[in-house]
């Protein structure tokens, strides 16, 4: 099955529920078969499949509920944060805390979650992201930038807490 594992993974991230993810993937394949005539040979098959899945999700009950909660902030790129020495990235890696990262991604608004996952996990180019999400490339870039910044901001308190814990542990060892 073309793209089956990837589509399911993405569907599960969107719906955050196994049964709904299965329904979404099933409906995506049904729609792809039914509307295959609308697919233009030579164009991006992957972007076409993901677009069907995403549109199906957005019109589902969960999708509608989730998108109603999306804040209406402008698609503008704010100033970049100055990077600190103990960045969330390095501390996160040091502790290899995959679950923490997964839960931070889970908590991202859906329009940030989807662009981040399609870029990092599916390694889609900005052009492909633009086709899949039906938004201009400029919007892809600003949305991706904001998604990454939001993720870093949400990880920063955990990272700092981790640093404090490590320091306390070191102190305990020295005190022995």
């Amino acid at each position, binding site marked *: *099955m*073309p*793209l*089956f*594992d990837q589509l*399911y*993974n993405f569907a*599960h*991230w969107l719906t955050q529920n*196994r049964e709904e*993810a*299965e329904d979404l*993937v*099933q409906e995506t*394949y*049904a729609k*792809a*078969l*039914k509307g*295959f*005539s609308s*697919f233009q*040979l030579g164009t991006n*098959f*992957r972007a076409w499949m993901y677009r069907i899945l995403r549109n199906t999700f957005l019109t589902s009950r969960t999708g509608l509920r989730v998108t109603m909660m999306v804040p209406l902030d402008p698609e503008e*790129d704010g*100033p*970049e944060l*100055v*990077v600190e020495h103990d*960045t*969330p*990235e*390095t501390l*996160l*890696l040091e502790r290899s805390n*995959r679950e923490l*990262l*997964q839960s931070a*991604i889970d908590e991202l608004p859906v329009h940030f979650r989807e662009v*981040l*996952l399609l*870029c*990092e*996990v599916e*390694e889609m*180019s*900005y052009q492909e992201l633009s086709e899949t999400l039906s938004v201009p490339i400029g919007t892809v*870039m600003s949305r*991706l*930038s904001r998604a*990454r910044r939001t*993720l*870093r901001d949400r990880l920063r308190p955990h990272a700092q807490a981790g640093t404090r814990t490590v320091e306390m542990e070191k102190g305990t060892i020295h005190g022995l």
Partner: protein
Amino acid sequence: MVCESWKAKLDTYLDGELPEQEMRTFDAHVRGCTSCSADALARVQMKRSVQAAGKRFTPSTDFRRRIEQSVARKPQRSFRLGWMVAAAAVILVVAGVTYTYVETRSGRDLAYRDHVFSEIADLHVSTLASSSPVDVISTDRHTVKPWFQGKIPFAFNLPELQNSEFTLIGGRMTYLDQTPGAHLIYDARKHHISVFIFPERALSLSLSSSSSLSLSSKLPASLDQNSPSPKPLPFNTETWSQGGLRYFVIGDASPADIDSLAKLFKAAA
């Protein structure tokens, strides 16, 4: 700060989405700027973490079977419609198979190559960050080479460095995909360069599938010319296979220095 304008584009650079000319300018800047290279490294690490964490959910076997059956099933409405749907299903599968063959095959090759280069870059950086980067400290190749005897399952030659700009710092054992190998560190005009040597056969399962692709590549500008989304890192690398061994040379020295050291190794092997 001067770097703020660079940092605003750092993500786009790491996504390999800047125009070619700008990518080259950015490469040069990142190599020379410790602040930007540290930031780039942190963001690459974050990208990799998100990539690993993002591959989280796997469909059940039962669900896979159900979908396969539903795609293969012919509707009973009419003979003509049935054939149309069946034809669409065949085309979809053919498109998918074609996609899978073209994209996934090259994708897997590229992914593996990216993985190897990422691991090599990580080994290089983490070793240099260590307080004791080498286990055998000597500028003499006749001291460093024998140190590896009995520690790794192969032998190799080290080049004579007289009249060259390179100085041997020392060596240590290392591992790539559970394969033991040698890690040698050289100095060239205050730049540290790592040379990794692994038995080709142990890596051959994965690398043989990449043999048609040029592994003799440079990061980040041309990891591979066909790469759809190069994953840039602020290092120059060169890799080749010789005498059953796979060599990797990596460092932030100039491409010419990396190439010179690689040539010395090729001549010594």
